[in-house]
Every structure is written in structure tokens, then in C-alpha cells.
């Protein structure tokens, strides 16, 4: 079984500046990986490189043993975004359907099989109750569920989620994290999740990938989520606390901002 992801001495340059380089990384199928790091360190660029949206300047990357390409049905993607425009008048179910055949040219014809597939994904993420409402009218948490269904509908075996928990309230952060963990476990889907705040996903992740200072490192949560490691990686004081029920909480003294001005 090939690795879900394999980077070999990979590097990316944007506008002449090296975002990160010399990246060796391997992710096994079915792993839930958190991608952490300061703002502007190149977390989103890492996802875009894995999607083929940004070319590598050096090295190689394989996804399920194959070179990256756009439109790969194996990969579902949620870009970093603010909310959909409240006036956007297209139903949630139509948005999911776009993930299935939105890239096809030609006259759209009705298809019962595709409709069933869309309904199945909407049910999986628990969005059946609002599938016929316009996407702009839905809450942030509801929109994220619909987008996860869209990312999965083509039969994706890997989800790349860029800050899916940002701008959600605490209970929705919790619910979406649990949903993603469930999909990872039950469907065997590999998850790469870029996060600004590690706390909501900390109980669910198998591995941490750190993007900081032009390098990408990876490790077990218990090895990386430590006061001294995080302080070094962020270049700012960060403290890891242990709660009474054995959970970890990461506390930063202020918003960490990288001196690399590239924010992609």
C-alpha cells in the first residue's frame, strides 16, 4: 500500500522567495494530520503544492504513489475562506453536486446515480435538514459540513482542509472536529488539516506537521506539543498546560506572526 503522501526534498519558491525547502515527509493512509505553524510560514502553500496549484521548485511529491495533478478525484479540498456571500443563491445540494461533475463540459443531464451519491454524502455529514436552502443563508458550521460533503463526493481518499475551524464558535469547532475524526476512522480517509489554533483538534490527531522558519517537521503530538518545542518553533513564548482530565491546552502570550511576509 503506497503512502498517502510522500515528499522528497521538496521546496517551493513564490516570487523569488523560498517559502520552505528540504522537506521530507511521509503520511500513511488513514492518518489524521494537523498542520501547524505561525501565520505566513507556508501552511496553505504546502496544501496548494500537494494539490498541484503551486509548483515545486525542487524535489518531488507523490499522492497515493502518483505525481500530483489538478482534478484528482482521490483528493478533496477545502480552501481557507471567509463565509460564503449571504446573497449567494445556490442550494447546498447543488454545491455538493459541483464536487461530483462541476468540472464537466457539455449539456447537464439528470442522473439518478449522481443524485443518490450526493444525498449519501449530505447524510454522512448530517446536512440533510438544510440541503435545499441557499448556501449563503446557512451558518458557518452548516457551510463547513456542506463543503466537507463536497470534498468527499468524488470518492476522495484524502481531505485537505485549510483552517476549517476558523470563524466557528466553540461548540461547532468541537462538532466539526468530531465529524472529521469520524470520517477519518470509518471511511479510512487521510486528513490533512491546517489549523491556527491546535486546541480544538488536539484530542483527535495522530500526527503533527510543523511549518516554521522555512522548514517542515513532523512528529507525534506528545513530542511536539510541549512548551519548549512550541516556543522554539513559533519563536515566541508558548505554554502547554495539562488539564485535570488529562487533556493538553496550548496557550500563547500573543498572536505569533512569522517574519516571512509570504501569506498564502
Amino acid at each position, binding site marked *: 500500500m503506497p503512502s498517502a503522501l510522500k515528499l522528497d526534498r521538496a521546496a517551493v519558491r513564490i516570487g523569488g522567495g523560498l517559502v520552505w525547502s528540504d522537506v521530507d515527509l511521509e503520511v500513511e493512509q488513514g492518518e489524521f494530520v494537523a498542520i501547524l505553524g505561525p501565520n505566513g510560514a507556508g501552511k496553505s502553500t504546502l496544501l496548494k503544492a500537494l*494539490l498541484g*496549484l503551486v509548483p515545486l521548485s525542487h524535489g518531488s511529491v507523490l499522492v497515493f504513489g502518483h505525481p500530483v*495533478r*489538478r*482534478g484528482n478525484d482521490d*483528493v478533496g*479540498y*477545502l*480552501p481557507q*475562506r471567509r463565509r*460564503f*456571500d449571504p446573497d*449567494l*443563491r*445556490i*442550494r447546498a445540494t*447543488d*454545491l455538493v453536486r*459541483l*464536487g461530483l*461533475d*462541476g*468540472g*464537466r*463540459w*457539455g*449539456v*447537464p443531464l439528470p442522473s439518478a446515480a449522481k443524485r443518490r451519491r450526493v444525498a449519501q454524502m449530505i447524510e454522512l455529514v448530517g446536512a440533510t435538514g438544510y440541503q*435545499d*436552502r*441557499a*448556501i449563503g443563508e446557512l451558518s458557518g458550521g452548516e457551510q463547513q459540513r456542506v*463543503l466537507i460533503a*463536497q*470534498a468527499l463526493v*468524488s470518492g476522495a481518499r484524502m481531505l485537505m482542509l485549510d483552517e476549517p475551524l476558523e470563524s466557528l464558535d466553540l461548540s461547532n469547532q468541537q462538532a466539526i472536529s468530531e465529524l472529521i475524526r469520524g470520517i477519518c476512522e470509518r471511511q479510512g480517509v487521510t486528513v490533512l488539516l491546517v489549523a491556527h489554533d491546535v486546541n480544538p483538534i488536539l484530542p483527535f490527531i495522530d500526527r503533527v506537521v510543523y511549518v516554521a522558519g522555512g522548514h517542515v517537521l513532523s512528529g507525534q503530538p506528545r513530542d511536539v506539543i510541549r512548551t519548549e518545542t512550541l516556543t522554539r518553533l513559533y519563536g515566541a513564548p508558548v505554554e502547554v498546560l495539562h488539564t485535570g482530565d488529562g487533556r493538553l491546552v496550548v496557550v500563547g502570550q500573543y498572536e505569533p506572526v512569522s517574519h516571512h511576509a509570504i501569506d498564502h
Partner: protein
Amino acid sequence: MVGQGPSWDVVADIQLLLQFHFMQNAFLAGTLVALLAGATGYFVVLRGQSFVAHMLSQVGFPGAAAGVLLHVSPVLGLITFCVAAAVGIGWLGRDVEAGNRAESAAVGSILAFSLGLGLLFFRLYAGSAQGIYAFLFGSILGIADRDVLLTFAIAAAGLAVLVWMGRPLVFASVDPDVAAARGVPVRLVSIGFLVILALAVAITVQIVGTLLIFALLVAPGASALQLTARPGLGFVLSIVLALAFTWVGLALAYFSDFPVGFFVTSLAFGAYVVIRAPKTLPVRTRAVYA
């Protein structure tokens, strides 16, 4: 316009309406224009590109004038200028939207210059105020046979391409980042749509003119999107509304002494207000409707 008024006998009225060749041409061209304008308008509103539609129609004005000046069909001048502007906008990217301050200031200056240039071209021709009036407010009742033919070719091709690129266009409109990751050539789709929009603008100007173009190119799509969030239904509804505004507008103008442009814009505006009004009422009042 003519001696006889409507008799409320539909068949007789339609015979009356179509008894003259210029009215046959008007209905034929109007129908073709409404088909493409309604179809394009759905995407204009979905993509939030009303401002671009307006801009293209103003850039078309000197194009029409140049067509008159060079003794070729004004429609050809319109098409040339509109398509060139569309490719230019597409090449610059989607930043040329009303939301972008620096760009909208630049676009404003270009539009004023464009109208001024059109004025100069018309003056150079013969100082014909008639011609200017026709392109600012439409001249559907003076459509020549060769223009009907050209309108047919453009409407048929434009509509076919829109339907063919429908799914990638919707995808790129509502979710460009994911569409790009899924292999949709977002930039190309965007430029392709702008070219179709330019063609739609060029033929719509014949009916309602540069200044009233929103009536057929934006209002039907805006109303359709208020009525339904289903893409297929919204697309068809937008076309149906554009057809209805054109047909009823033409008939009203024929049986009265008022211009076509007035009736088409009034119908478009009236429909939008009626559809939109219940949604803009305060929440307490709205509960009565629900």
C-alpha cells in the same frame, strides 16, 4: 403609432402586431436578444458582474459610432469594441469589480472617455443626434434584415456555449478555489464568459440601448435568483422573464405612443420590486407572509 388599438382578441391583436415587416423584425430580434440576455444575465447576477455588464455597454457606444462612421454595420462596431474590452478585463483578472476602489476609479475614467469618444465619432459622421439617441436608448423598431441574421447567429452560438460550459461556469463562479483544484480552468472560463457577455451586450444594445441595458441583462437574472436557488430552474426562469419583458414591452409600445425602452425597463423594474419586496420587509411584518 398606428390607427388601430388593441381589441382584446388575442389572435387579432397578434395579427395586428405583426402586420408590418418592421414589427416582425422587432419581435424576431427581440426574441433572440432576450434568449441570450436572459441566459447571460443569470450568470451576471450569480457572479456579481453587473458593473462589468454596464461597463461593456458603455464601451460599445463609441464602437457603434465607429461602425456608422466607417459605413459598416453599427452592430459590428459594437461587437468589436465590446469583445476587445471583455478580453482586456478578463486579462486583467477579476479585480475590475465595483468593490475594488482603485480599479473602479480607473474604470470610471475610461467609461467617461469612452462616451466622449462616441460623441466625437457621431459628430464626425454628420452631427446626427438621431444616431446617438438610437444607441443610448435602443432602436428596435428600425432593425434591418441583415442585423436580424447576425443577431440570430450570435444568440444561437452564445446560448449553445453557455449551456455547454454551464457546470464549470457555475463552479468557477461560486467557488473558484475549489473549482481550480478540481481541474476547472477558472481564468479561461472567466474570459470565455466575458466574451459571451460582450456579445450579449452588443446585440442587447439594439433593443434597449446602452443606458437601459440592465433591463434585459441584469433584472431578469436578479428576479430569477430571488425566486429560486436551483441553478437549472433559475437559468430558465431568467430567460422566460427576459422574453416576457421584451414581448409585452413591444406590444405595449405598438399600441401606445410611448417608447419600447420605457416599457421594457418598467416591466423589468416592476417585476423585481414585486419579487423582492416581501423579503426586504422587517422581520415582524414578514412573518405574515410566511
